[in-house]
């Protein structure tokens, strides 16, 4: 069983994000980075499948700068077998489409039965890459899964996804792409010896030319989305507190909703 997990390095959840001076990116000074939490569910699920089947290989793949090595090494420390790091200066201004294009070419070079993505990356929250890769590779996909089961022969998989008020159960042939949602599993900790051993695991570095892609294929011009401006949301005004007896307070609330908030 060959499993690939595409991961992204993102600013840590607790980071305070503000726009950069040029308004086209976020200010990255002093940020600490982590593996996108949704991608961690993918890594964990891949490791569980490998343990369950008793054989196989888990490959983690990421596009990013030199710093991305840390995210990949973290996944190797948790138990992934090898890593592929795609880095190229031309990729700095890409959008989800470019990311998906590059990943789909890279994934085609491997022979993967299952490909996991996070449901979304917690930095830009696009939730697009996994699905776009499925489209570009012509593979079936199930998005936002919270349960995964391999059938006995390992030729199909059954995945659950939460939909409005119900759970949808999808069976698909393999190879297929799955994007992972919370509740899928509980990602394990890296063992301390695992961290020390991660450095010895293989890490392949590919540039665009290794993927037979060009800077024109993947630069700002090829992107489908152009960022015009990144701004902070307006600061919310303080709420109003209505004091007093409940019957009077309710009457006052209704009056305010009608006259000030104009909701009805």
């Amino acid at each position: 069983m060959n499993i690939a997990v595409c991961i992204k390095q993102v600013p840590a959840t607790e980071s305070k994000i503000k726009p950069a001076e040029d308004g086209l990116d976020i200010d990255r000074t002093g940020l600490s980075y982590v593996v996108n939490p949704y991608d961690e569910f993918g890594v964990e699920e891949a490791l569980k499948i490998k343990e369950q089947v008793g054989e196989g290989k888990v490959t983690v793949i990421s596009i990013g700068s030199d710093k991305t090595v840390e995210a990949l090494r973290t996944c190797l420390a948790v138990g992934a077998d090898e890593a592929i790091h795609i880095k190229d200066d031309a990729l700095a201004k890409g959008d989800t489409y470019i990311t998906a294009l590059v990943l789909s070419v890279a994934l085609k070079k491997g022979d993967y039965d299952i490909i996991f993505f996070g449901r979304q990356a917690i930095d830009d929250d696009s939730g697009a890459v996994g699905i776009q890769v499925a489209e570009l590779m012509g593979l079936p996909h199930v998005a936002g899964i919270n349960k995964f089961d391999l059938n006995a022969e390992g030729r199909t998989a059954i995945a659950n996804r939460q939909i409005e008020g119900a759970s949808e159960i999808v069976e698909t042939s393999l190879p297929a792409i799955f994007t992972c949602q919370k509740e899928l599993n509980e990602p394990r900790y890296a063992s301390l010896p695992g961290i020390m051993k991660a450095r010895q695991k293989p890490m392949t570095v590919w540039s665009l030319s290794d993927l037979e892609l060009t800077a024109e294929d993947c630069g700002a011009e090829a992107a489908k989305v152009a960022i015009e401006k990144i701004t902070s949301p307006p600061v919310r005004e303080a709420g109003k507190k209505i004091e007093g007896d409940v019957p009077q307070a309710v009457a006052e609330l209704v009056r305010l909703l009608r006259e000030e908030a104009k909701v009805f």
Partner: protein
Amino acid sequence: MDFEGVDFLNLDDAMTLEERMVRGEVRRWVDKEVLPIIAQHFEAGTFPMDLLPKMADINLLGANIDVFYGGAGLNSVAYGLINQEMERGDSGLRSFVSVQSALVMWPISEYGSDAQKAYWLPRMVSGETIGCFGLTEPDFGSNPKGMLSHAHWNGTDYILNGTKMWITNGTISDVALIWAKEDEGIISAFLVEQGNPGFMQNKIKDKFSLRASDTGELVLADVRVPVTHVLAKAKGLKAALHCLDQARYGIAWGAIGAAMACYDTALNYAKQRIQFDRPIAGYQLIQEKLVYMVTEISKMQLLALQMGRLKDQGKLTSVQISMGKQNNVYHALQIARLARDILGANGIMYEHQVARHLCNLESVYTYEGTHDIHTLIIGEKITGLSAFT
């Protein structure tokens, strides 16, 4: 919110990725496994036994021990960072790890035979066996040389008699490393197992400090110890002191963790607490306290990191470790007191952890060589004059 650590001087840049990853994993582990339960254990005066298999899972025990015996084989900085993060949780928990790793596993790996290492170390890495270190006696604390515990050789076995006091993990340990004087007066190390006839492990109750750590009194009345249980290479008080060096090194890092927890709590509290219509963090007297805290934490980090680098080069001396233990615990204690003050009445509540750290650090200040004893060690080194007697 996840704990982010304190790094005013960009010292992260002076650490390797592996070192930062080890810290990150233990930090996450402490947030999830320790912080939600530790106040209850402190209040109840119990050691959180449930954490033991979880610690073993990520290989927290014996992280400094050779991978051959199941340890994680970490370098000294990574090992130090584990201590830091554990003590950010609770000094009692860090004490457990220090004793298990530095005061029992380390001596076995340093002074034990291959058979002893192969028998004990894997069991201790997995948490199946808990160890304790018995040096201090009721009448001999700072001056262990005078110990009364005695090991008489009867021709086939050693017969141990004596009392050990204030022993961390004392009643929960399966094996005690006991220091006792042989007939000729040489201090030696013996492994005494729980249940050994004549060996009693009594709990010391009613502590206000290190309440989530087990502290015991060990009584040995004609306890028979076979030669298989003697650490043959541990001869003389200096062997015991060498073990303490390992643990004191970890304490110097641990103190940073407790200090960070207090600083972090005080800073967040001061920014939110409004008095006289402004956050108290805006008042000069509060800022002065917070600035003292972050400055001292940064200096503690520098000291610890340099000690770690020296240790890995085999150059770290005992007296340098004394400086690290003494300085870092002293300032951690001051920081805990100031944090307690900044939190006002809330500072005395379990909910806010600073009082727990403050109480704990009072023990840390005393054990593994009191603050003043380390002063005398450094004083002797720089003046050439001993002020002990």
